[in-house]
């Protein structure tokens, strides 16, 4: 009887033990086509004074292409990479025919249930900072 009670107690204790479930952070998949939903220059909103509607940024595998170019981090197609596929903080663009790569901060928050990309860069004078907010329009 005594052994039985000990066994029951051990069983109950085991049942109470918290089970840790490791949920791996998913790889950030930005492949697809992105469009600009907001653009600022030195904090001034340009979204409604410049036609950004036709600009498209396509990510596929490790390459990117741009349709209807506007001032951007790069001005032609090439390759891209994230510094960490699960926890990216930087994105690198390497334009074809250009020796050096451009690295910029990669901000990938969820807004209204959707991932967006915020990119900050200076395509002209280094004193002028632009921020584009991009939204994915297809996979």
């Amino acid at each position: 009887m005594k052994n039985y009670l000990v066994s029951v107690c051990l069983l109950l204790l085991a049942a109470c033990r918290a089970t840790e479930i490791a949920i791996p952070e998913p790889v950030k998949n930005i492949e697809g086509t992105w469009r600009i939903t907001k653009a600022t220059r030195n904090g001034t909103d340009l979204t409604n004074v410049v036609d950004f509607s036709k600009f498209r940024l396509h990510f596929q595998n490790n390459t990117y292409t741009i349709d209807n170019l506007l001032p951007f981090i790069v001005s032609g197609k090439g390759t891209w990479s994230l510094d960490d596929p699960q926890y990216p903080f930087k994105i690198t663009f390497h334009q074809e025919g250009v020796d050096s790569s451009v690295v910029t901060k990669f901000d990938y928050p969820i807004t209204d249930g959707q991932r967006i990309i915020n990119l900050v860069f200076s395509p002209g004078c280094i004193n002028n900072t632009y921020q584009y907010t991009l939204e994915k329009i297809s996979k």
Partner: protein
Amino acid sequence: MKHNKYTGILKYTLIVLACLVLSRCVYLNEVDQPSEVKAGQDLVAVMHTRFEIAEARAADRIVVGILVPKSWNAAANTTMTYTTTSMGSGTMVKIPAGVLTNGKEWPAALRERYGIGPNLLDDMEWVVFWSQTTYDVVNGDKQDVDIKIVTKTGPENMRVKLGYFIASSSDGLNDFYTNRPYKAIFKDCFEVTDGDGDLVDFCNPQLAITDPNSSLDNDIMTITFNADVVNTPLTGAQDVYFCVKAYTNDGQVIDRCVQQPGSRMPKAAGVGNRYSITFWPRQYFNVSANQTINRLEYYFTDASGNIKVGYGNTASPFVYTFKCK
């Protein structure tokens, strides 16, 4: 008994509130500054400030900000020193990146709070220093602090209203207190003389406003016709158009003086009679990958193109040179 209970609560509440609403008083009494300096020479200014402490603080620093044209590169070309009534003197250094007040780095926080002050061209920046030494301050302490600022002016001729800001690292831009523990002053128009190029006037309204003031042809550019500055032949015009020539590095002159929807300058809402056009120069002038645009010459016209307004309301064009300083 009930009365005594509520009286006690009231007293306690008042004591707590008194502690909260008065942390310290900061005064920025005056800033001594010359009226003009030659381009590339040092501007020496002295801020006369006073701190009256009403709540002890540990490891506190004096924080000083200046609002200056970006072209001065003041972060690299400025030194600051200070003297106090009884806490000695010292030097100040640029606040390291990552130090926040109100959730932002200090320059961004001051930009949000004060913008560009009374200046009219948005080509200015806040540069913020703090004392190298930290201080443990006690309730009742009173210190007169004079801060000497030496900053090298840029190469351009300009008129600008400089800004000066004083605070402490502990209280930052805290607005909770009844007497804000920070202060700012914007001075009258200061002039840089004997420099390069046309006068850049941050102080006075201009017929044509370019934003950004410094840009290259791969920036997005906004040009505004401020029709409220003076009566011009375009006063009362229904529509204003942008008439421009671009001069490239290989000697090409690209003419875009056509009155059409793409060159129309819509009137901005709520800011008087201001007409603006925003464009990407490389696209607007369709230059090749090998070309760069050096400068623009432009007028504002009516729908017919017959009425033109140029620099200073004359027949000469406005000139914009692409540069990055």
